[in-house]
């Protein structure tokens, strides 16, 4: 290296380290009259869509609601206003991990809310555990929740596992088949990522056990935008039921393609996205009878009230699967804080053992998991209603066959 370039290098290093020092001196710590709550969500990148529909609006809605009521109630009856520290994780786990470290060690926030997505929640779980924060993971569908609870005892998994949803769907279809409404052939497609694979792996044995024949069973890569070929194969397969373990772009694309090619299976099931408020618009107003993952008790007053407030404050209705659970998770947190305060250990213990009154009803976690969930829902009369578990209070009757598009 020449002499000049060495001096240049040194100076540049000096400038950089000054900049780094300035950057490290972040905002000052929490004050006593406030509760700081941090989250690192995907504002940009591939996860932004999911976070923007299910996670971020609920965080904002909840903070606004709590602050309008005078703040977060404490065990002593006082109220503290919530101050939010928010970062964009750019849909990258590396950035997400750093942001959580920042929230915990730099900003020293009182509580941290989890990010959107299974992979994201797993990536931050060790950090939540290390810093001691309770993690109320909602948007993470995983069959390994019991294992994770053992590994990270302050983690809570509120959305069930792939097998649960797959079994729920098989229940619905088996009942219809037994009633003679549909034949015993099923055409299934799944998106090739952790979620789709989990669901199809859960569904295959369940279908077989219930006496169904999977006449079409293929996976497609994330990012597929053209479904004409797949649906045309499914249509030709002779199955009465079309099942897609899919993500929003795929769920929407398949709906539109099925409509335009006049593919009218008696059961049309899609996964993530089917319960989104924009779905009826995507389906050109013909969503009636479409089944999808999740669901809400549409007749419950609490749910209706939640939908109305969400619509009023966020500007659009919530999705009918994970949104209400997300909001419920925040209510769990709120009520636990009101009972035991901000001490993380006590808080985790309370969340684990207490019972809470939320928009989805009375909630009590089993083994740190929410098991009282809706597995299958269906668009009926303009709202997305839960149809399975059929024996749970609030379940609607499935409508099979689905009316033609």
């Amino acid at each position, binding site marked *: 290296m020449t002499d000049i*370039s060495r001096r240049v290098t040194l100076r*540049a290093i000096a400038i950089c380290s000054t900049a780094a020092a300035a950057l490290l001196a972040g905002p000052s710590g929490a004050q006593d009259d406030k509760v700081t709550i941090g989250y690192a969500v995907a504002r940009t990148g591939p996860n932004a869509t999911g976070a923007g529909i299910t996670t971020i609006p609920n965080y904002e809605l909840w903070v606004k609601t709590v602050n309008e009521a005078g703040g977060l109630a404490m065990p002593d009856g006082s109220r503290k206003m919530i101050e939010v520290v928010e970062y964009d994780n750019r849909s990258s786990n590396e950035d997400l991990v*750093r942001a959580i470290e920042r929230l915990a060690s730099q900003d020293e926030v009182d509580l941290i809310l989890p990010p959107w997505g299974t*992979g994201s929640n797993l990536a931050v779980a060790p950090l939540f555990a290390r810093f001691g924060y309770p993690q109320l993971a909602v948007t993470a569908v995983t069959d390994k929740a019991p294992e994770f609870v053992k590994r990270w005892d302050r983690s809570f998994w509120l959305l069930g596992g792939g097998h649960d949803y797959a079994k729920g769907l098989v229940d619905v279809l088996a009942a219809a088949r037994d009633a003679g409404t549909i034949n015993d052939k099923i055409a299934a497609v799944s998106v090739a990522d952790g979620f789709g*694979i989990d669901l199809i792996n859960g569904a295959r044995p369940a279908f077989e056990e219930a006496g169904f024949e999977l006449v079409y069973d293929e996976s497609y890569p994330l990012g597929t935008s053209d479904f004409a070929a797949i649906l045309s194969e499914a249509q030709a397969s002779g199955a009465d039921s079309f099942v897609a373990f899919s993500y929003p772009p795929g769920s929407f694309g398949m709906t539109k393609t099925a409509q335009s090619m006049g593919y009218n299976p008696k059961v049309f099931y899609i996964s993530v996205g089917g319960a989104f408020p924009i779905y009826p618009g995507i389906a050109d107003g013909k969503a009636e009878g479409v089944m999808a993952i999740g669901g809400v008790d549409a007749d419950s007053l609490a749910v209706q009230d939640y939908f109305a407030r969400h619509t009023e404050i966020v500007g659009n209705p919530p999705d009918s699967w994970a949104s209400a659970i997300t909001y419920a998770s925040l209510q769990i947190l709120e009520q636990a804080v009101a009972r035991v305060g901000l001490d993380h250990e006590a808080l985790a213990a309370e969340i684990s053992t207490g019972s809470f009154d939320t928009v989805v009803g009375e909630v009590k976690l089993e083994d740190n998991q929410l098991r009282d969930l809706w597995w299958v829902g269906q668009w009926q009369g303009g709202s997305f209603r839960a149809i399975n578990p059929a024996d749970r209070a609030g379940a609607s009757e499935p409508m099979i066959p689905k009316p033609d598009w």
Partner: protein
Amino acid sequence: MKLILPVLALALLAAAPFALSDYGLGLLIGAVTYTTLASSWALFSGHTGYISLATVAFYGTGAYTVAVLNEALPYPLVLLAAALVGATMALVVGLSTLRLAGVYFVIFTFGLAELVRQLITWYEVNVTGTLGRYIFLDVTARGIYWQMLALGAVTIGLTALIHRSRLGLALRVIGDDEVVAAHSGIPLARTKLVAFVLSATILTLAGAIASPRWVYVEPAIVFNPTVSFLTVIMALLGGANRLWGPALGAVPLFLAFEWLSVKLPDTYPIFLGFLFIGVVFALPDGVLAGIERLRQRREGAG
């Protein structure tokens, strides 16, 4: 004398975690990771001018190797396996592609990253039947940092050695004119291949070292094309054909990213876009060359 400063800096950096918060450490890990990526990228591309967008193909493969093997093998062997996988992959890719030049090479490497991702996805879905994999290793953030720091130091040291070696000269000649290089007795294919494999092995190792921080790994997470783009931008920003150029591009840019995403979470891509365009226009040969030019001009005027 020349060695004292870098060694001192390295010692200081190695001791830094004891004085820093977890977030400070996280920042250091990010900065060191990107310094390593940009430096090892520049090891091949800096002098030859072959812009490779396959960074994430190797980086992700490293992470995936760890995800597959972390329960089967002891950690050092996992790293070794990752290095071997990376080197083998680079050898195969290099043998078949290094005769492509210019934009064809750029696009090929871009496509390669996608192909690797699709093939791994397909394999996992159809053969193993699981897609997401877990990395439960007892590696702390500090452990990751020290490993990455060591890898970064090795990369820069190796680059310094190469700059002074026949290989370095050969790479520079290839970057200027391959025809002249060949007619001067430089075996083009072998030279490029050696540098490419070296660079790719380091990239793969970097991915392997970084992966325990993610815990959960799936192709969509580890083969994120942004990593490839960022690496290129950082190396070029600092000056890809200089020893400290990639580091000097990676550190400020990484911090700028972090700062922007904190201060302007909604609009930061817009500012970032302006930043890139600004860099291309204002510092065409990288920061180091830009500062030198400025200095020369001032000395010329004074």
